[in-house]
């Protein structure tokens, strides 16, 4: 196969895909040979960009959601406002949210990240708050009796006890963001979605299946990896988890 030319949007099928094989010319359902030959030149970078988009969104979203949860514990009106915002986002189409953000911050990764971080909030915030609220009052009282300060109680007692729901939230947020990041490609954020939109332009079936399949695999691997991390971090929950 010849070297890959730079990706142009909506090109014609044949010239774009190098020296075409029979399978590619006929546009069969899935040309495994083409996929393998072009994986490193065409699929690897979007895959890495996709991981980067997701990692940044969750990494930035987590401290924000945590702060919001702590504020909500003190001021109830804040929780109401935040929940309303979350409920609104829940029903607002992601595609439109991305487009509208473009008007404010332009077509770039930053815009995509703002939208993605917003979407992490509605999951992380609820789970962090639920986790912190579920800490048994006895544990808090014991902490106070031992003379722990507020900060020590938070870090040494509440946070570890709230870890299972928080980890579950991180897990859901991560797969949700992997899903939404495919849509973010619509505003030029890159990632695996850009290949899907490329394929919509060319109608090349192998690319549809390969790009979609990679996104699905990425989501499943991330989900599985986070389950393992969750189990490692919270060994005490293991017995009660499997019923």
């Amino acid at each position: 196969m010849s070297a890959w030319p730079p990706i142009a949007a909506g090109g014609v099928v044949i010239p774009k895909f190098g020296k075409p094989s029979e399978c590619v010319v006929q546009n069969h359902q899935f040309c495994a040979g083409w996929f393998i030959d072009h994986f490193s030149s065409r699929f690897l970078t979007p895959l890495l960009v996709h991981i980067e988009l997701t990692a940044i969104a969750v990494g930035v979203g987590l401290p924000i959601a945590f702060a919001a949860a702590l504020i909500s514990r003190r001021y109830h009106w804040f929780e109401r406002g935040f929940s309303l915002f979350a409920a609104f986002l829940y029903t607002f189409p992601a595609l439109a949210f991305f487009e509208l953000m473009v008007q404010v911050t332009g077509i770039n990764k930053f815009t995509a990240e703002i939208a993605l971080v917003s979407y992490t909030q509605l999951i992380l915030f609820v789970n962090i708050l639920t986790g912190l609220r579920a800490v048994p009052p006895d544990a808090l009282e014991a902490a106070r009796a031992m003379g722990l300060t507020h900060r020590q109680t938070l870090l040494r007692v509440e946070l570890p006890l709230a870890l299972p729901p928080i980890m579950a939230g991180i897990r859901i947020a991560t797969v949700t963001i992997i899903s939404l990041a495919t849509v973010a490609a619509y505003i030029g954020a890159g990632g695996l979605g850009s290949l899907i939109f490329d394929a919509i332009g060319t109608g090349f079936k192998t690319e549809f299946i390969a790009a979609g399949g990679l996104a699905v695999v990425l989501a499943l691997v991330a989900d599985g990896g986070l389950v393992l991390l969750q189990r490692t971090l919270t060994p005490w929950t293991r017995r009660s988890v499997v019923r």
Partner: protein
Amino acid sequence: MHTIIQSFQFFGNHLHLFRTKTGQQLELSLASIGIAMALAIPVGVWLGHIHRGSFLAINVCNIGRALPSLAVISIGIGILGIGFTNTMVALVILAGPVMLTNAYVAVEQVDANAVQAARAMGMRPWQVLVRVELPLATPLLFAGIRTGTVFVIATATLATFAGGGGLGDIIANEASYGTAGVVAASLTITVLAFAVDGLLALVQRALTAPPLRHQTDALRTVASVTDLSTEAP
């Protein structure tokens, strides 16, 4: 604020367009929700009733949630081609798992004492299911249906990329319809989602035994976002 006013004007000037596109969006959403319910709820309820398959019932939700819709649509274009069916399959995959898991948990967690009392009164297994377990499971069961429904209505927007029509046609075509059009279409979807959710809430209320009515809303967020996932192995 200016944009919002413009979007209302846009809406007013394009009533016919909105009627068509909203109709398409609703048709696609309702078909998907119907199929997802028909497939997922009997399985979830049955597994909950026999107290088996918790691993399957809970993990199906996690896997379903992990599948990116646009990616599923993309794979669907490769296999099924462009059109209504493709997006419908993706939406069924999106909504089915949430409904199945909630149905399972709803029936499974019914108070064992109530079930035993029913058995002691001489009820047959299906009577226990219909008269005791299902009434007690209604709030959580509906939580799953409503969560799935909201997901589907919002996500049906992506149908535009697979030629499935709907309000996504307006949202994805900012060049023709402008920002006002995008905002108007998005708000229409949001209103649509809240409206269908509200209708389902009414149905739920009608079907719920009076003493259980108050706990409905509290259950909802917890069930859909937190509990199921913390339980999952």
